[in-house]
């Protein structure tokens, strides 16, 4: 990692810890796409922090050679927001699963979209809770049966991209882990795009949703390029088949920057207001 020429190759962004993922899990390809995207973006590993919650997908940070933060379930975006606001010099990527991001983490998702801090948020969506061994997530189909939902949930699926647009995300894309180069391209663009960029990656859980192996056949590039009209993007997404892959929305909302003082004072300078 001390050799900068090497550091810019994708391999330099991988750590030497062996993932605990099941053989064939879609997340392996997402990991490889991360390393490619980081290489493309050209920041050094130590200038990048990947922040996650809890879940199979949330194990990703330790498999990278960048800094990582493996926090608690559902709070990756909150931790990432704090980190980025405190350390704007770093490239901060939050990542995790559909349960982590859309179920327990839903409120932070809404407010991160709205706040528009310069972050990238990557969800590895497998429509299931993998880590806890197969319960429905918000993106699970209503008729999928599991021990916890023996007759299916009966619930409409959550539309992460549409909600992101409604809440104000500044960049919205869908990707498929089976195409790591495609994911890497999108990720690199997401990282470069100012403000809150959201990338939903369809990433199969071969253990609890083996039928997701068929996603390879189902995905296809979006027929039209990204729009900058959120309503149009939302309408397109609502009427697509869910396997439309590509950048779907590129916004230009101003990035959130917290208020900063004009002249940098010392703490002692603040004492005056208390003096009798």
């Amino acid at each position, binding site marked *: 990692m001390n050799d900068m020429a090497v550091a810019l190759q994708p391999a330099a962004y991988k750590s030497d810890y062996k993932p605990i993922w099941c053989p064939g899990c879609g997340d392996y390809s997402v990991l490889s796409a991360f390393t490619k995207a980081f290489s493309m973006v050209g920041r050094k590993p130590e200038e990048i922090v990947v922040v996650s919650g809890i879940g199979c997908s949330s194990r990703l940070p330790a498999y990278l050679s960048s*800094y990582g*933060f493996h926090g608690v379930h559902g709070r990756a975006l*909150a931790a990432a927001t*704090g980190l980025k606001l405190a*350390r704007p010099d770093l490239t901060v990527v939050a990542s995790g699963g559909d349960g982590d991001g859309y179920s327990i983490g839903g409120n*932070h998702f809404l407010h991160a979209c709205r706040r528009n801090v310069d972050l990238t948020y990557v969800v590895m969506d497998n429509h299931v809770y993998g880590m806890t061994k197969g319960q429905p997530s918000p993106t699970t189909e209503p008729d999928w049966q599991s021990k916890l939902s023996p007759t299916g949930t009966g619930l409409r699926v959550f539309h992460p991209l549409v909600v992101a647009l409604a809440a104000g995300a500044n960049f919205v894309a869908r990707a498929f882990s089976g195409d790591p180069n495609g994911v890497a391209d999108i990720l690199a663009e997401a990282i470069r795009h100012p403000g809150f960029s959201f990338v939903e990656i369809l990433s199969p859980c071969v253990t609890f949703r083996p039928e997701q192996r068929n996603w390879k056949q189902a995905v296809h590039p979006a027929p039209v390029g990204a729009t900058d009209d959120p309503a149009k993007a939302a309408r397109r997404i609502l009427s697509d088949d869910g396997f439309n892959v590509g950048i779907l929305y590129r916004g230009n909302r101003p990035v959130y920057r917290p208020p900063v003082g004009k002249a940098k*004072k010392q703490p002692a300078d603040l*004492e005056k207001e208390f003096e009798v």
Partner: protein
Amino acid sequence: MTTTTSTPRTSVCIALCGSGGAGVMTAGNLLLEAAAQAGWYGLMVRSSGPQIRGGEAAALMRIATHPIDCMDDRFDAIVAVDWQNIHRFADEVPLDRSSLIVGDPEQGAPPEVFVKSGARAVELPMKKIAKGIPGSWPNMIALGFASQLLGIPADKVKAVVARSLKKGAEQLPASVAAIEAGRAAAAGEGAAFTLAAPPAARAKRWLITGNQAAGFGAIRGGVRFVAAYPITPATELLEYMAPALPQVGGVLVQAEDELASVNMIVGASYGGVPALTATAGPGLALMTEALGLAVAAEVPIVVVDVMRGGPSTGIPAKSEQSDVSIALWGLHGDAPRLVIAPNSIADCLTATQWAVHLAEALQAPAIVLSDQFFGQARAVTDRPADSGLVGERLTAPAGSEGYKRYAVTDSGVSPMAIPGTPGLAYTADGLEHSERGIPSSGAADHRVQLAKRERKLVAHDYGAQWADVEGEGGIAVVTFGSCTGAAREAIARARADGVNARLVSMRLLAPARPKLLAAALDGVDRVLVVEQNHGGQFLRYLRAEFELPRTVRSFRHPGPLPIRPEEVHRQILALEEESPR
């Protein structure tokens, strides 16, 4: 402790009351400032009814020749601009035969609950007098009356009023006239309530609330990131910091909820920036999961809990010391953390600064237990000296070979790599982990890391700040936080009765310091534990963590009423009786 003498008084309590909009808070603040200008110490507590706006309001004031940290047992006077629902404050404004009830006859007779104290009623037609001075208001008459009663010089009062009017300078003459009218009306009361002269030589004085003090202490300690969600009575701490923090290069962000705010500060602190949030009980409850993360991942953070009446939403605007248990023991798993309790309004500054220092030094979360009384009361205090204690983290130098984030060290503190440092990248983790930070469910890693996280807190030398220990004697009053003021006064009264008692006011609640307490209690055979809650949470903590003398008495009651000096004084005398030496 009734005082009927007319020798100058060292402390006077007075309540200014009226329905919302009558301006009694303004009058109270001006009185406090004028007293401060003249060199006295003082304290003002705001109390109001359940209505969001426009309900009854009271400024509860105490002015004294020496620093004070609590209200007295009784009030010397209540001055009511009107009486609408003011009877609701009866518990908070205890009167006796030597007190005065000052009311406007136009507003009707004083409520029976005050009258039955035997206090002497004085009629002060504030509305009528104010009407006679165009542009003036009844609250200025009240201010004048009160200032004269206490012997606060007119020029000081006028000066603070002039300063407060700033833009509206044309109102000044009317206000001054009103104040003078009020003073004239009080002149007949003689000197029974006149304060003794303030101390001659004096250092810089501050007028500050506990919330401001805690916020400024955090800034002194190096906090440069705050994320928080508003909640009574912590909001003013945040409102102080919102404009202050950016001036010293810091950032404050309002989070969507407490889960976000605490995780935001953990994220910021992971990035190397000392970070804080402030909340009250319900918010603290929501933060315990992330506090556990800060313990396990060893990320320093500071959470100021401005305690209020509980449980649940409880009594949001009233003080109580009932978050002791959750602060000490409210995390799942074995999760050692720091718990620090300031014991005066000024100490809100010093203790919070210390908390930042300790959290950073020990890479652990620190909970600061303030309370609504401290947080929202405004006090005249000596300027709290800067302890110079700032957050300084043991960081790992760039390029250390084979960096281990959670390396087992003698002190238990492991050098922390700050993102941006080349060659040290690691992943912070709330899963149990090896020294490298890799998740591990092995018994050996778990034991080693649990022991290390405990050791770093237990092995640290906290110095004399762990407690304020004062006085001598076989009886000790052991307390913490905002009961300290009342305990200290009670001990002084007992001493005047010839009974010696010691004060042990604990500032560091966790980790517990059993040897230090044992030393502080050397020679003590009877302990009185004083706290403001129903269940005896502090008592339970003392029993659990320390060896105590055989005779331990608990004196406690919940909020909203404060623990008063006389209540504690009586307990000390009873304890003295119980086993005569």
